[in-house]
């Protein structure tokens, strides 16, 4: 059906999408969301006598602490106590992958915003007042803010890693064209609208319950236990939902929860610690800035024969998740292209910025930006359209990724061709050309962005989840999983699975909070895999229950299990409706003392990866898609407006069209933000300059593309995905990379002297300077 290029076919497709959206399930939280009744950490009922914490942090990026005087602060009326590393009964260590990060600085500080103490007071206001009364003296040390400087000084988080395919050194010898260059992509602030926070409560026997806004409840639990020197079972972590995460609360929700728990441990009182926005911006890490270099070699017929990239990741002052992020950069170094000879190396460079962390895409976008830059560079020099090079090198079935996995069920070419035909790329290109011919003050630019994104935690051992399903004796169902709801709609998907397996009404199913006492030892909700892992576990649990229910029904109705079916809240025998309702079936099951609870475990099959060889099969599957971006640049003012982003996206068989479309649109706009207006700025002393929402701008409703069309790619789906509905959280962000190149193409159309640059984001400043450079 995608072959027809007429507008009629496009309209039909759009109508189909619209009607499936109407029928599609709504986010189960919508009702309370729109009424302001959904509860987040700061909305939890506080117990009487709750205290409030404010973090005292370093004002310099690197130095020795010569002295700290807390006396004035401690004496302020309403201040309860000030906690430092000396108050930690266990170990002062919060590093997740590498043990290199203290909760509180001891003798040295390593970034501006590094926590030194926690002030606990009767109110947040008093604690903030007290913070201003602390006198601290530092001996300042040399500050590194750029990855390259760190590498030169030998300041690395861990050993560099290299992925290699074929023989790149030899292959370059056979290339008709070779180009080298450098790129920079800046960090990105998560800007979850709900800032970081946690609430800790004392329970009996010294146990502590933490309500945390975290993507990783187990990380909070384990780290709190480590800091307090407790066994993990004394710590209960509960998460209802997050007001946005985007990776920023995967590892970095932990310190605040731990601090609140530490204070609760000492004070035997509830403590709330919710960061205010400025503290959050200053103290938490962001998407990693990358300084990279590339060498690309092409044949005469534009095949990329060889590609080399060196990625310098600015990890910040501690490892956090940087090694894993760096790894994913390598996995996605060639994006949607097959390159037979590749060498990609990444250095995690230790600087004096706040430790950078997970952010939607997790290093993948940074890798893709570099190869897209290399292609744009090559195209310019050769004198062809980058689209031609992109198209010539798209990944095909059975091609080998640079990490050894063989590509199967590849949709790279399919999505590319579909986007070209459905949206009639030729006409779009002509329109842009004609516009540019007749307009002087405005220029348009067009770019294509294909994506191929691997789904799974690249750390194989994290790919597992559990679900605990209870059917209560009245027939209502409660489900606990490891999935954390942060707006991505994962709870809705869990609910759909149960409702579908049992064939009961959705309002019979409740998704419980994510709680470490119900589902333990969990992986964080990340890597786009939450719905797959937890969904598969839920599916497994529900199916096991269904099997038992059918056995009971067969016994009651004197038939065989094979003849039994549950449909629309009734038991069917041989496809005929019986008298037995869902509720009656549950009552019979209960009476027969058959378990109405099931706990299922799911671990992704097939995947493996050998880090000693840097080869394996790390991904359950890949998600594909292609975006066409068109922008108009105001050549007088250097501002721009995106006219269109037209996408064909590989959802597999979407189980929740409305939710998945929301993920696509949201990811795309976040990606555009990263590539355009979102500019993190540190001064050379490592102080954050973009330290407020007045100086760090994310897209608002007026800055998004005038028109976004996202159409589903017709595919067979993939059984590794939950109900063949592919992961959708991260991949769409990378469509936003097209924005950079579209703007640059418009600038080029205005100023023939313009030299291509690969230095994101493309702010209005860079555009104007480019429009008028000589």
């Amino acid at each position, binding site marked *: 059906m995608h072959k027809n290029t007429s507008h009629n076919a496009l309209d039909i497709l759009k109508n189909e999408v619209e009607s499936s959206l109407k029928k599609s399930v709504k986010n189960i939280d919508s009702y309370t*969301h*729109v*009424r*302001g009744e959904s509860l987040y950490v700061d909305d939890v009922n506080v117990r009487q006598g709750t205290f409030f914490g404010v973090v005292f942090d370093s004002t310099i990026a690197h130095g020795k602490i010569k002295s700290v005087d807390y006396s004035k602060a401690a004496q302020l009326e309403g201040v309860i106590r000030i906690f430092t590393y000396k108050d930690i009964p266990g170990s002062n260590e919060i590093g997740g992958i590498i043990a290199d990060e203290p909760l509180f600085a001891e003798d040295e500080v390593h970034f501006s915003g590094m926590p030194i103490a926690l002030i606990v007071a009767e109110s947040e206001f008093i604690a903030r007042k007290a913070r201003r009364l602390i006198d601290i003296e530092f001996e300042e040390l040399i500050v590194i803010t750029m990855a390259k400087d760190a590498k030169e000084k030998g300041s690395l988080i861990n050993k560099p890693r290299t992925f290699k395919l074929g023989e790149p050194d030899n292959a370059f010898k056979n290339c008709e064209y070779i180009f080298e260059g450098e790129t920079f992509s800046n960090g990105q602030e998560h800007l*979850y609208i709900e800032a970081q926070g946690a609430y800790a409560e004392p329970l009996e026997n010294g146990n502590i319950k933490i309500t945390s806004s975290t993507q990783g409840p187990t990380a909070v639990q384990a780290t709190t236990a480590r800091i307090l020197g407790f066994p993990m079972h004394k710590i209960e972590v509960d998460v209802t939902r997050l007001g946005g995460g985007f990776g920023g609360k995967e590892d970095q929700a932990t310190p605040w929860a731990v601090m609140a728990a530490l204070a609760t441990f000492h004070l035997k009182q509830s403590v709330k610690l919710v960061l205010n926005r400025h503290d959050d911006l200053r103290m938490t890490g962001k998407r990693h800035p990358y300084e990279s270099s590339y060498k690309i070699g092409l044949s005469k017929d534009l095949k990329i024969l060889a590609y080399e990239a060196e990625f310098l990741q600015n990890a910040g002052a501690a490892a956090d998740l940087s090694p894993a992020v760096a790894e994913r950069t390598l996995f996605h170094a060639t994006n949607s292209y097959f390159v037979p000879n590749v060498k990609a190396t990444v250095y995690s460079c230790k600087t004096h910025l706040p430790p950078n962390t997970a952010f939607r895409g997790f290093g993948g976008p940074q890798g893709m930006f570099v190869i897209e830059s290399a292609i744009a560079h090559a195209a310019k020099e050769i004198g062809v359209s980058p689209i031609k090079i992109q198209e010539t090198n798209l990944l095909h079935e059975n091609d080998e990724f640079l990490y050894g996995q063989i590509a199967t069920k590849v949709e790279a070419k399919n999505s590319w061709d579909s986007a070209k035909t459905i949206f009639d790329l030729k006409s779009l290109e002509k329109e842009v050309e004609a516009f540019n011919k007749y307009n002087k003050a405005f220029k348009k630019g067009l770019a294509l962005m294909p994506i191929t994104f691997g789904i799974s935690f690249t750390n194989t051992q994290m790919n597992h989840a559990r679900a605990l399903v209870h059917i209560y004796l009245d027939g209502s169902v409660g489900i606990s999983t490891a999935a954390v709801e942060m707006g991505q709609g994962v709870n809705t998907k869990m609910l759909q699975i149960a409702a579908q397996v049992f064939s009961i009404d959705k309002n019979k199913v409740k998704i419980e909070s994510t709680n470490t006492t119900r589902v333990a030892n969990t992986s964080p909700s990340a890597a786009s895999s939450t719905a797959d892992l937890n969904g598969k576990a839920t599916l497994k649990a529900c199916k096991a229950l269904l099997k038992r229910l059918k056995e009971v029904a067969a016994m009651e109705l004197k038939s065989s299990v094979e003849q039994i079916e549950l449909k629309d809240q009734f038991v069917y025998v041989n496809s005929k409706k019986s008298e037995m309702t869902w509720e009656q079936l549950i009552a019979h099951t209960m009476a027969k003392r058959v378990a109405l609870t099931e706990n299922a475990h799911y671990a992704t099959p097939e995947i493996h990866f050998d880090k000693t060889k840097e080869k394996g099969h790390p991904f359950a599957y890949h998600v594909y898609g292609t975006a066409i971006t068109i922008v108009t640049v105001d050549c*007088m003012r250097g501002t721009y407006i995106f006219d269109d982003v037209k996408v064909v996206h590989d959802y597999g068989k979407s189980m929740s069209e409305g939710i998945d479309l929301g993920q696509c649109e949201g990811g795309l706009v976040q990606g555009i933000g990263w590539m355009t*207006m979102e500019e993190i700025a540190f001064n050379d002393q490592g102080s954050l300059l973009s330290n407020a929402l007045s100086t760090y701008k994310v897209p608002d409703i007026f800055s998004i593309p005038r028109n976004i069309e996202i159409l589903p790619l017709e595919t067979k789906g993939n059984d590794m995905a939950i109900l063949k509905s592919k992961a959708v959280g991260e991949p769409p962000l990378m469509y936003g990379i097209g924005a950079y190149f579209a703007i640059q193409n418009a600038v080029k159309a205005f100023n023939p002297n313009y030299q291509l640059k690969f230095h994101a984001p493309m702010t209005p400043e860079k555009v104007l300077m480019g429009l008028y450079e000589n």
Partner: protein
Amino acid sequence: MIQFILNNKTIKTDLPSGMTLLDFVRYEQRLTGTKIGCREGDCGACTTLVGTLNEDGTEISYQSITSCISPLGNANGKHIVTVEGTNLQEKLTAAQNAMKDNYATQCGFCTPGFVVALTGFALSKVEKNFDNALDAISGNICRCTGYKSIERAAHQLCGNLEYSKSAIALDTLIQKEVIPSYFKDIPKRLQAIQKESKPQKNKKAVYGGTDIYVQKADNLIDADVYNIGFNPDLKGIKIEGEVCSMGAGTTVTDLWNHGELNRYFPNLRKHLKLVSSEQIRNMASFGGNFVNASPIGDMTIFFLALNSDIIIQNQDGNERTIALKDFYKSYKTFDLKEGELLKTIQFKLPTKQSKFNFEKVCKRTHLDIASVNSAIHLTMENDTISEAHVAMGGVYEIPRYLHKTSEFLEGKKLTMELILKANDILQDEISPISDVRGSSEYKRLLGRQLFFAHFTELFPKQFQLNDFVAHA
């Protein structure tokens, strides 16, 4: 004592008037639907409505504000509506349904702010079209959805409101399930509330609070502030002959809504749309913008180019008048003595012969602080400039009235050559610094471009970008 109606509940409180309205509703009243996102008016998660009784006490006009930078004292005598105050029993309102039906809520944290702002739109007098709906949520940031679903929700709501050209009667809104029925009784209830607390002079004076609460909230929240923005003497726009006087407490929205001024400045709304968001425009006053003395204040630049005068009153009630361009001395220093209050702004209205333009460029076109902004007011006699006033922000330590550039333009025939020469003078009059809003080179270039843009905007037939490119 501060008295007001919060949703359906009458409030009497002795809490400090400087406390933020946000903290009051969340932590004193446990209305947790109003969220804390940034505490600086830049995200809209804390949007609430403020209903003000009109002069004859029959009707209430509602405006959206960000409660995080609004002093509790500003609620005095008003109807404050949070998301909970829009809720119906067991049903969703039109705005809520629009958000739900279109998947316009994901994590949900920004959602109540959007719902309240959209409800404010439904209650407002403006035409219920898509553009106006977007203006209503111009101060709301969502990090999840990418806004397209919110746009679809806005379309649905406009449809529910039948694209009404004007204000919709309360009864109709109640019947259409846009708002709960208790709204009907609010005018009477507000009338009954005595506005007893008169402003006291020894308190900290605050206009709208939109900047001072961003900069210095901790100094204010346990203080009693004197909300001069609500002093009726400081409100209002008067036009007498060719002179317009505005009270310093006049808000940007007051200007936006002023019919006559919109005739004098046909592009007024286009220009004002570049100034923050609707929520902030509803609070931000000219007095506050002027005494904040930011080198980049949008309204300051606007009124500098109108060659405005300001009237300053001391504690004894004596007044003095100075030109706004003489008000600023050096960075954040201005000619206002202890006890003095900026009371009125006066300027000569544009004539048929005069042309006015305002330009602003920032990282994000809306709800952002300019890298450079500029305004120009030219009076033309045929093709000769008889009077010129040019102002530019972000290029000097104070909001810059470009004396030499303006002087140079006066009495000369408007030609391409003149503009290019004027730009040379302009470049000597500015000395931008590099900061988070751009490098000094960029601001210089942008200054030139915005100066050129004034002429392509005002004289489109005579000047086009390409002519400048060829010459510059």
